[in-house]
């Protein structure tokens, strides 16, 4: 993980990636720029009998693309996939002090459909941005979204490594329909992330430690510029992690049309107000409610933080149900085993669906009969209740809980 840069008269050296017994699906690349002698590649790979030739030809071609003619390249590989190799080679070359004229972009093999503002965001699975071994199967676990994280899970000296890795992943990794979110670093470092990431068309950017609406506006402007004329939407989810951020929640949510959701970072928030975190989360009660209300007021989604004790499934379930009651529509996952519990908790319950179906049926009947008032039995149903019921039935269809073709009027009374 250490990045070394030695600048001497004849050569300079840069290192990227990781090596060691426990490292898997990653590699370490050391590049020593030289003035003559061509490319001298030393490769030690755990998959030498399978992909040794492929790695050698990939690295040789990569050096040429990056405009490096003379260098010693030392590689220790633990079964890294080609997009990882490309990212590490480019990072090592840059660390050695050579700024390539063209980046080493792997051929794009995925371009998922753009996502919508009100897409379901019950779960988002965190993937440490510098840990490639989790990327390729991350989409299999059914989370609504994955977060490729460049911020807290990435050590300060690995920021470039992670940024290039995530950039490449966005071009080639199939996340199987999960919305692809990227958490950039706190501004201004986050601007460097945006420069690499935005052109690769993730669906959503999380901006950490947002305290004022102008921070969101700044990010919005950069995105608009980086996207050029592209019509493809790129949503924003500001993370509020301080008392001040919470106080500004409504204005932050309205700072840009790109804001699709607000979320909260509880570790930093607790630190900011100077109260240690408790299991029940009393210290953040106010902030979470305040933020949820602000999000609703601004007509964006309210998304909760994470539940850190990944082995405590019952605790997670309790947390989710309480969170849903506050108005949150989803939360983060630190481990795939949390996904199913979270989905079940944030999904409408069968009793809720059944009641909604009855209300919708009554509404449709009233409409057919030209009645202005919807009633169920002896009870009058107010228009907002009808609206909510319609939305719930719609949601249940999307989830497959109700068959898509079933008309609400056929639902039982």
């Amino acid at each position: 993980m250490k990045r070394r840069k030695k600048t001497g008269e004849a050569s300079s050296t840069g290192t990227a990636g990781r090596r060691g017994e426990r490292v898997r699906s990653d590699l370490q690349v050391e590049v020593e720029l030289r003035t003559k002698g061509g490319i001298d590649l030393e490769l030690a790979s755990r998959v030498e009998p399978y992909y040794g030739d492929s790695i050698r030809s990939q690295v040789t071609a990569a050096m040429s693309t990056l405009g490096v003619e003379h260098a010693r390249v030392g590689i220790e590989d633990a079964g890294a996939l080609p997009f990882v190799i490309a990212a590490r080679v480019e990072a090592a070359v840059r660390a050695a002090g050579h700024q390539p004229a063209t980046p080493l972009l792997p051929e794009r093999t995925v371009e998922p459909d753009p996502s919508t503002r009100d897409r379901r965001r019950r779960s988002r699975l965190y993937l440490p941005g510098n840990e490639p071994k989790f990327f390729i199967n991350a989409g299999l676990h059914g989370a609504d979204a994955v977060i490729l994280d460049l911020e807290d899970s990435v050590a300060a000296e690995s920021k470039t490594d992670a940024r290039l890795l995530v950039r490449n992943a966005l071009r080639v990794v199939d996340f199987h329909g999960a919305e692809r979110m990227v958490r950039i670093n706190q501004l201004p470092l986050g601007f460097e992330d945006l420069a690499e990431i935005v052109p690769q068309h993730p669906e959503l950017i999380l901006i950490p430690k947002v305290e004022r609406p102008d921070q969101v506006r700044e990010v919005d402007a950069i995105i608009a510029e980086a996207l050029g004329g592209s019509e493809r939407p790129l949503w924003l989810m500001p993370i509020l992690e301080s008392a001040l951020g919470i106080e500004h929640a409504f204005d932050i949510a309205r700072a840009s049309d790109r804001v699709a959701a607000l979320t909260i970072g509880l570790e930093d928030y607790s630190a900011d107000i100077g109260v240690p975190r408790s299991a029940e989360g009393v210290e953040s009660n106010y902030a979470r409610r305040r933020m949820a209300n602000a999000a609703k007021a601004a007509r964006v989604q309210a998304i909760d933080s994470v539940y850190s004790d990944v082995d405590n499934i019952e605790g997670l379930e309790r947390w989710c149900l309480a969170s849903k009651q506050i108005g949150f529509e989803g939360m983060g996952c630190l481990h795939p085993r949390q996904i199913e519990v979270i989905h079940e908790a944030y999904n409408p319950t069968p009793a809720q669906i059944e009641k909604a179906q009855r209300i919708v049926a009554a509404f449709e009947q009233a409409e057919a009969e030209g009645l202005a008032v919807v009633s169920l039995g002896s009870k009058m149903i107010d228009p907002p209740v009808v609206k909510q019921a319609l939305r719930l039935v719609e949601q249940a269809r999307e989830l497959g809980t109700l068959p898509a073709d079933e008309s609400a009027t056929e639902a039982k009374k």
Partner: protein
Amino acid sequence: MKKDAKLVKNALGRRVPTVVNGREQTPYKGVGRFEPDGRKQAPPIRSCRDFPADGDKRVASLEEALKKCGLRDGMVISNHHHFRNGDRVALRVLETAAKMGAKDLMWFPSASFPCHEPVIELMDKGVVHHIEGSMNGPLGRYCSHGKMRGVGVLRSHGGRWQAVQDGEVKIDIAIIAAPTADPFGNCDGSHGPSACGSLGFALADSIYAENVIVVTDNVVPFPCIPWQIQGNNVDYVVEVDSVGDPSKIVSGTTVITRSPDRQRIARQVAQLVRDSGIMRDGFSFQAGAGGIALAFVTYLSEMMRDAGVKARFVRGGSTKYLVEMLETGLTDYILDGQTFDLDGVRSIAEDPRHVPTSPFTSYNYHGKGNFASMVDAVVLGATEVDVDFNANVNTHSDGLLLHGIGGWQNCLTAGCTILAVPSFRDRIPVIVDKVTTVTGPGELIDVIATERGIAINPRRQDLLDALAGSDLPIRPIEEIKEEVEGFCGGPPQRARFTDKPVAVIKWVDGTVIDTVFQVEED
């Protein structure tokens, strides 16, 4: 190999030698195609007049016992792997034989473990000529590089019994390590400081070997109750300080996979067993002790509990998860071929519904039927599988022989054979065009379940029909292969081999299904 030995193509198109270690071989002919005949091998007649009337067959040392058995050059010495990586007997036997000056022995273990690595030194010194039995890790590497003088012969647990019955392997001296024995030679694995569960792997040797020595660290007065090995077959009993390292004989806890990808495979396999209708009252299944198989057992148990379904029997490799099923009423019996953990050992000692079995009852090709074909579903692993559903458990794609067969081949006759494998390991795809080594033919493999899709053998239209309404990700095997090759950077390079066979893989009937060739050195 003899001079007239040549390589011929068998029914799968694999090149196999016609002679192995001086003995004529039959190339694999297809599933159920080879018809054996003749009579079974029998040990020489002995009479009770040659043994002490008081039943005390103890001798002072292993050396004395080997001497009394007439140890000489070229003999076949057999051991068993119920102590797994904690075994202290096999190496001691071979080293004692070395001290006595024996040369060119054939070692015939039911399986070898990393603790047996020093056998390499004995092969270098000429004490051991070659090994017929599983060769794991270092021993496999040694063999793959062509350093062994004879050709390695790998057999399944059932195939080992069959080779002994056939007389293809004539055991001169069988040494049975026993956690508890009496002076007469009755012995058992369920009790004693080195308790390990079933001794089933040693049963054939006790019946067919020329000489049988029982080695124990726990002598009890006659009778040793229960006994799994009958003293009436035993020549000598030797007492030693320790037969094994209990901490390595059984793992204190068997470890369920924590990998979400592998948990996903396990859960989907359990769902397949449920949704296909295999999971019903009175059904049976077998799963090993690997991480995915254990997770499968816990998922299936949950589904059985939810559905109120009870199995008639489950086959082990027993672990605490099977024991839990037995104790919570999810199965009537455990038929146990090998006991993997402390809960299994406790259960087999205490619970009469937890029954020790042997490769004869479970797997033997020359038996009048066996249990394996009566099991409804079995969940196994593999190092490689191919688009014709052939599977390899012995070599890796780089050509190195690294694993034994165990009961794997024998289990393929179950009603539904499921291989639960990741679609790639690091960068190495598991689904290939053609497996490096065929351990099991595709016609017996019904399902290949990976984390990114489940492939069902097109020969099993019935299974495809049964799963028609299921939400399992059922996909053609070629499609999964292409997806994996897509992100791995194309298919891997093929291993390069010389033309020298270093080992053969026997099919359950004794025919040769494939050959492991020496890997080419750079």
